[in-house]
């Protein structure tokens, strides 16, 4: 008897967590998406004169990174999480097998690549936002 009640408790706990995640996602994902969307034109504007605006561009990228990291925790689907992970991983360089190093300096080409990934991420999030309206 107590075994059944334990099973039900666990089931309810997992359900409650799912609902909590859904609500926090519904509230926060559109906000984060909006902030990410804003970063793109700001950085792109400065890309013309990359050498002189390096500091600004890297700071904006780090902002984007922390936004994406916080976003990752609020997502429920694995495919979306993977996209966030891939973006965050662009800020690391592989040194040895499992040893990663943080990366904060980028070249011109890498910055364009980051911008591209950022834009693709925003497209995915915008679609997700539409889905969330129906949940």
């Amino acid at each position, binding site marked *: 008897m107590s075994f059944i009640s334990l099973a039900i408790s666990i089931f309810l706990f997992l359900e409650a967590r799912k609902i909590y995640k859904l609500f926090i996602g519904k509230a926060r994902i559109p906000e984060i998406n909006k902030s*990410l*969307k804003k970063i*793109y*034109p700001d950085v*792109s504007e400065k*890309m*013309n004169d990359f050498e002189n605006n390096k500091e600004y561009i890297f700071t904006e990228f780090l902002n984007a990174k922390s936004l994406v990291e916080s976003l990752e925790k609020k997502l429920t689907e694995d495919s979306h999480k993977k996209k966030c992970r891939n973006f965050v991983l662009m800020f690391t360089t592989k040194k040895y097998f499992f040893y990663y190093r943080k990366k904060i300096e980028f070249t011109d080409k890498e910055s*364009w690549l980051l*911008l*591209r990934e*950022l*834009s*693709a991420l*925003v*497209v*995915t999030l*915008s*679609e997700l936002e539409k889905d969330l309206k129906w949940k």
Partner: protein
Amino acid sequence: MDTVSKFENLINILIQQTNSNTIRWNIGIPPKNLSYGTDDFFPLFLYTEYQSQSLGLYLRRYRYYHDESEYSWCEDTVFCIIKDDYIVYKYEKNSPALLDLFDKASQQVSGIDNLFK
């Protein structure tokens, strides 16, 4: 590569080329298969040649109906591939890169840089 990545990649390249003025954007008339049989309005249609392929970029203004009679006006930026005066593929996602490309392209067409020479 999925469709979004492909187009984001292309748009990214176009932004860089527009920045360096390697490609020139021109004002054009929307093709018939876009503007006929619809109430939508196209405030600005730009096109360019990239690797002997016509690419277009335009604004689409349309009525967004809240219910049967009430509506508000909305605007979308769309990227398209043109073949023989037909729009064959449209990419109309909510993408910041696309908005940025439109901004850069219209800036180039406006000739704002020439005013400072």
